[in-house]
């Protein structure tokens, strides 16, 4: 049985072939879910956003042009929806971070004594939305600056700045936790 590339499947989706769309979903649903869940932190919201991303892709299929890989296109749609969703909810303030009695200056040592995942969740939620998305695409999806730039509709230099600011903000938040 022939295996069609994503871009070929999308051209069939543009013609109204829902079987092709079903195949696209099955190939990429975990990616959309993974990004949405790491960004939003809530499974219900993550499922809504991931499904909405595919529905937006379906609606825009007649205008789809394979100028980039489908994965890049998917990242772009998911990233945009995640950021829009988070902006509606508003920022999370770092004062809500849990306290620690450890006086070690080393952030890694501090985190050994606390729930690392919960703390990282709160650190990420405290980041501005675009910094948060850049961190997730870099650390967890392993994308290059160029790939992140295409997903976030910006430049590689801007991505470098986003990651620089995010790392400084994360370190600052961790040191604030340590000093409490």
């Amino acid at each position, binding site marked *: 049985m022939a295996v069609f590339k994503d871009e070929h499947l999308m051209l*069939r989706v543009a*013609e*109204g*072939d*829902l*079987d092709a*769309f*079903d195949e696209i*979903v*099955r190939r990429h*649903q*975990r990616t959309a*879910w*993974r990004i949405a*869940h*790491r960004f939003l932190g809530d*499974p219900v919201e993550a*499922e809504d956003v*991931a*499904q909405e991303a*595919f*529905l937006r892709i*379906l*609606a825009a299929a007649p205008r789809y042009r394979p100028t980039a890989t489908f994965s890049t296109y998917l990242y772009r749609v998911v990233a945009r929806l995640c950021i829009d969703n988070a902006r509606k909810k508003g920022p999370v303030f770092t004062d809500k971070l849990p306290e620690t009695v450890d006086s070690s200056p*080393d*952030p*890694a040592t501090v*985190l050994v004594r606390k729930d*690392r*995942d919960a703390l*990282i*969740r709160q650190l*990420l939620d405290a980041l501005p939305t675009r910094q948060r998305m850049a*961190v997730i695409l*870099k*650390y*967890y999806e392993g994308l*290059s*600056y160029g790939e992140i730039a295409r997903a976030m509709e910006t430049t*590689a230099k801007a991505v*470098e700045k986003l*990651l*620089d600011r995010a*790392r400084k903000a*994360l*370190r600052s938040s*961790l040191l604030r936790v340590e000093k409490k």
Partner: protein
Amino acid sequence: MRCEKIISCLNAYVDGEQPDNLRRIMDDHLAICGSCRGRLEEIREIDALFQGALPVPPLPEGFAARLMIKARKRQPTRASGRRSVPLAWHPFGWMAELSAPMRLAACATVFLALVTGLSLAGRDVARRNVSIEQGKDIYGLEWFDPALPGSISSIYIAMADQPYEKGSGQ
């Protein structure tokens, strides 16, 4: 290279985004500059925090099935299993979208229009065979008798029959 420049490039250095020649320059500087090395370690500590952190739960059961239900609601006329082909270039491609009874009705309409047109054209041909005298009686048309020689009418007719020549003063 100055420390200020090195520090501004540390993120790209850690992320492997540097071209080889610049990377070698930074390697050489970091080997001798403790301050820049300290900033590099700060970045690496933050990166290390995220290694293996934030595990994602499995994809919810039925994710694709629920999504396809929504997709079919938004596109009800394009049901699964029925492939359509690109028809924009075909003059009668629109007929492929119709059901069989509708196609029959469309063909019957076109046939009826052709028959009606041809039958009406036949009547026009028949009309041309009517004589002038018959035309007067049938259609009530007026027919003017030929102009008398030397009359003003004959002069006007003779002038109208002359071919027009540009610059002739006519």
